[in-house]
């Protein structure tokens, strides 16, 4: 199982576990506040925006061009922004911490 910690805007920490699908789906299943996943994960709605901890960035990886384009005009964008529907849940990200952007 891959463990992921979400920190919401209210500073609540929630640890969730999964082994398939993408991080947005896992967050929605666990009702993480601020992750809505309106478009179902096609990179269109930006309601799955998270900030990756700098130390985890290399493991998570940078966004694709299309993904960073969608983030470009987001009010809460940072250099560690990702749309988490574009991150797969697998071993490589076990233990990462994601701050919910909204």
């Amino acid at each position: 199982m891959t463990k992921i910690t979400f920190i919401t805007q209210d500073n609540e920490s929630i640890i969730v576990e999964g082994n398939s699908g993408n991080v947005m789906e896992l967050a929605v299943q666990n009702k993480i506040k601020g992750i809505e996943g309106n478009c179902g994960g096609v990179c269109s709605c930006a309601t799955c925006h998270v900030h990756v901890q700098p130390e985890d960035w290399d493991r998570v990886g940078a966004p694709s061009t299309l993904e960073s384009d969608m983030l470009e005009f987001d009010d809460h964008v940072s250099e560690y922004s990702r749309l988490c529907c574009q991150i797969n849940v697998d071993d490589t990200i076990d233990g990462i911490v994601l701050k919910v952007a909204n």
Partner: protein
Amino acid sequence: MAKSEISDPFEKARLEKGIGEMDDQNDPVIMALRHKDVRRCAHNHKTFISGAEPGRIVIPSEVSIRDIRQIPFEVDPPMHGVYRAVVEPWFKRPLEADYNTALKKQIGAIIDEALSKDVVEVVKEFALVLQSRALTLLFNVPFSESQTWISWGTHVFRSQETALDASKANVLYDYIDKQITHAIANPGDDFYSMLLAAEVNEKKLTKEEIKGVIILTFAGGRDTVINAVTNSIAYFAEHPKALHRLKEDPKLVNFAIEELIRYFSPLTHMGRVVTEDTHVCEHAVKADSRISLNWASANRDASVFEKPNEVLIDRKINPHVAFGFGTHNCLGATHARQILKVLINILIDKVGSIDIIEAEDNIETLGEFKRKVGFNSIKVKFNASNTL
């Protein structure tokens, strides 16, 4: 050309200039056509505002037929966010299990009826009925209200004969006045009562504000949903394999919904009023003039979408802007997506094929551009899936 095909009239202008120009009642519009410019302008709500004179950001302009400000649509931040917070939870109700069950029942009945007929005119007999009945769920009002809404015809503000029809708008305004008065006397758990009880900045919403929200909810979700539903039926009629593929691999349904919405782009564009002399894609635009964010053109931008003019029902990365972008992104998107999801799932389940008998396109004219948004009418025959 296949009847379900929706071509892209903006390609040449998008590539060559990045903008298109059109006049509208002597208040011209510069259309942003590229995906990036559309997003940039949508994001820049200080230079490109929605909170102008009521009706002005709509194209064709409704300035001469409407004084009421539509909320939160014609309001800019920070007040926009305050209003939006009041209504947002309500517009998320389509995600609730009961809502979904009711929607399945409604759409199931509509499909059963369609299957029993020799010919169905999809716009009026199917999509309008479906849209109106589903809206009773969003308003949380009795199903019977949909009868009244269906009787208004396919357009609330616009009629086929004249671009802008004030008499149609009056029917809607009078109706809304009555419903609000009724809800004041009989508070319940409907949309009107929620708005009557709601507070912004510790003050109750005024009747004018409530009307502004309600009118928007009627107007925003009418033509858009009708076109999305009708165009989907036309698409599956001409692409039966797509329906079979979704049946075999139901996980694709979500991708298919987003892709159909991108391809159809039921709302072609939406205006903004410019607050200072500036540029859109290197083209000068003056203060107090209008621009528009052309979602339909952005959704065919080949620098973003591979094979933009094809429907790829398994398109996995699909950063379309059919529901808008940023601040004013569509509040009704959850409702609209649920409608399409339930519709597609029931089609998969019950319908084997659909034959188009005859169709008349609904074409919008935007200056030199002519864009098909859907159909004025389309007659089809629905065939059941298990013809044993």
